[in-house]
């Protein structure tokens, strides 16, 4: 069946090949590059980001090579509100957000998809490495590139209107395919880091927006071992850059265990104190209908993170996840993605963590 497909084209190789594959499959494809900054120069330049003038040009040239119409859509306001401001306020609240996941949830499969559907498109196509038949979402076959985690926030309705043509292929093959198709971005490195932080300095970016808020760094006994300029600049599990004056009594390295925005306190302690065995979450989003009672599955807590067997106990406000093996460095604000084998069952945002 021929679909009217809107291909989101970042200017990178993956979304370009995804668009080419959708066109080759016989769909009526239109390429759209999302302009996510009202001042494109302020975001990452060159190959590393997804929202520069150069990226817009690369996307346009890929569309030329594929032979599809191409437009730039200005989604800067929505992106700023739903991703950038969310990123800052989550850090301010002591949580650790994943902006790429938020961008999928609020921009690609919300703002962009809604507009596409209203304009008469049937689906949005992206270059994510995941497999979907419209109802079941599975991991991509390339374990190193699998992006099902950042798509686990999608609702069934969003998934129904999403095409992921790359899930059955490895990244290495996609690069070769791009070359073969004459898509010039083939040699670009993968994008990493946060696209809207131009210099990669997340701490500086947050400090500029949240200002200095000096406070104590304490150990697990509550003794002050150092000072910080803003608790928001820390993430749970962080070891470097703590600037602790007093060494630990046992001389071992210390890690951020907890961030309390209420008291503006950062708690540090030994590595094993990072172990988490129980997690509570906010309201889940299910891609597969969940059993009524507790059930066993596996959980992934960050992009490309470890997978832990767990028991899920649905509750009135969210889930309780009991991990069979301890997870390290789990932070509120992160997304817990639930899997049955390689199938995504659903996801929920981590609210609290409990240590054994």
């Amino acid at each position: 069946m021929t679909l009217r497909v809107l291909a989101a084209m970042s200017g990178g190789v993956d979304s370009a090949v995804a668009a080419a594959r959708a066109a080759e499959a016989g769909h009526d494809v239109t390429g759209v590059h999302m302009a996510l900054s009202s001042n494109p120069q302020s975001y990452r330049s060159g190959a590393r980001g997804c929202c520069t003038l150069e990226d817009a040009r690369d996307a346009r040239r890929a569309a030329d090579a594929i032979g599809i119409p191409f437009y730039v859509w200005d989604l800067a306001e929505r992106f700023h509100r739903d991703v950038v401001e969310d990123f800052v306020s989550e850090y301010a609240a002591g949580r650790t957000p994943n902006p790429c996941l938020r961008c999928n949830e609020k921009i690609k499969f919300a703002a962009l998809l809604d507009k596409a559907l209203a304009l008469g498109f049937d689906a949005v196509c992206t270059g994510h490495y995941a497999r979907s038949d419209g109802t079941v979402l599975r991991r991509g076959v390339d374990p190193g590139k699998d992006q099902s985690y950042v798509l686990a926030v999608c609702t069934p309705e969003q998934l129904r209107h999403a095409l992921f043509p790359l899930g059955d292929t490895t990244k290495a093959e996609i690069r070769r395919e791009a070359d073969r198709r004459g898509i010039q971005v083939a040699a670009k490195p993968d994008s990493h880091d946060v696209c809207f932080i131009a210099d990669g300095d997340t701490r500086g970016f947050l400090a500029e927006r949240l200002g200095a808020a000096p406070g104590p760094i304490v150990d697990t006994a509550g003794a002050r071992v150092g000072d910080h300029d803003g608790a928001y600049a820390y993430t749970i599990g962080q070891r470097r850059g703590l600037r602790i004056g007093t060494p630990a009594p046992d001389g071992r390295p210390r890690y951020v265990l907890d961030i309390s925005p209420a008291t503006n306190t950062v708690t540090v302690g030994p590595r094993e104190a990072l172990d988490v065995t129980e997690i509570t979450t906010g309201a889940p989003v299910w891609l597969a209908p969940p059993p009524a009672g507790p059930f066993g599955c596996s959980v992934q807590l960050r992009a490309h993170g470890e997978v832990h067997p767990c028991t899920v106990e649905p509750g009135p406000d969210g889930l309780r996840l009991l991990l069979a093996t301890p997870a390290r460095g789990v932070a509120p604000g992160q997304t817990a993605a639930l899997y049955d084998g390689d199938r995504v069952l659903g996801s929920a945002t981590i609210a609290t963590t409990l240590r054994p």
Partner: protein
Amino acid sequence: MVTYLDHAATTPMLPAAVAAMTAELSGLGNASSLHAAGRRARRAVEEAREIVAEAFDARPSEVVFTSGGTEADNLAVKGIYWSRRAADPRRRRILAGAVEHHAVLDAVQWLAEHEGAVVEWLPCDEHGRIAPETLQAALGDGTDVALATVMWANSEVGTVQPVADLAAVAAERGVPFHTDAVQAAPHLPVAFGASGAAALTLSGHKLGGPLGVGALLLAKPGPRLDADPVPVLHGGGQERDVRSGTLNTPAIAGFAAAVQESVARREAEAARLAVLRDKLIDAVRAAVPDAVLNGHPTDRLPGNAHFSFPGCEGDALLMLLDARGIACSTGSACSAGVSQPSHVLLAMGAGPARARGSLRFTLGHTSTEADVAALAEAIAPVVERARRAGLT
């Protein structure tokens, strides 16, 4: 079949222009060379200069060939500002229309940011017209004004300005007046001498000539312009020492051929386009009753129809029409293809939503009834669809 309703962006080259340019492409010689080949090229350039001068009521010595409208605007605005300020350092004010094309707008803005210019944007009425009284009030006694610039006809909404009156007001105060006539030249009787302007911008590809060529009609030093502008491009001084660069003989020949043909049939063509344009306006209004026609209701370019479609985004409308083979424009400035709300509509008092939900349809020498019919058929479903997508 493509329905091309974007002639104000660029219009197909006239066959005579293609022929003249093609012939010149295989001709030998740099027009500045002294030998026979150079003289041959020079002759082609000078014949072209005479054609352009005659067509626009200028003397051949007043024609300065440039690489296009943007360069001509930059030369006029920056060059006249620099020369006037050099002669009298008090002359730092620039009076410019609020609805100018970016080639003027950004040149003026640049002078304000880097060269100490003091800019006064001349406000317009709801149709985009700038009243001579507005310019008069802004001029004061004129002693501190470097130049005034107001376009002949607006590139987005097509409104025609009272250029001769504006130029006369500036002349009373001894202030040189520049006008960008890029959009007016293909359709209106643009007469440089009679207009009283000190400088006038022309573009080749808007009137059926090739891309990459244009001219600044520039009064010789005298009552209208006290001194030649300071060059923007320095070099061989090929054009009256105010513009350097090897003369682009093929493009200049093509430009002149287009000027000759377009001016010869301008009156009849303008009348034909006005009829077609009115049909287009009626068709759009019949299909979309709440569509708002922007610009002056009558005193507008014959090929221009510019609408706001309430509740729609211009980009969405453009894409949906493009998918049906209809080419038009949102008429706004682009960077990386991202459109900003049009400064022209904002200056006319439109809110950002009306400014974003607008489309420009422009007719030209290849336009036919079939083009209007195609738009008439497509516009209602397209607007309905875009309305569903709303303003994001």
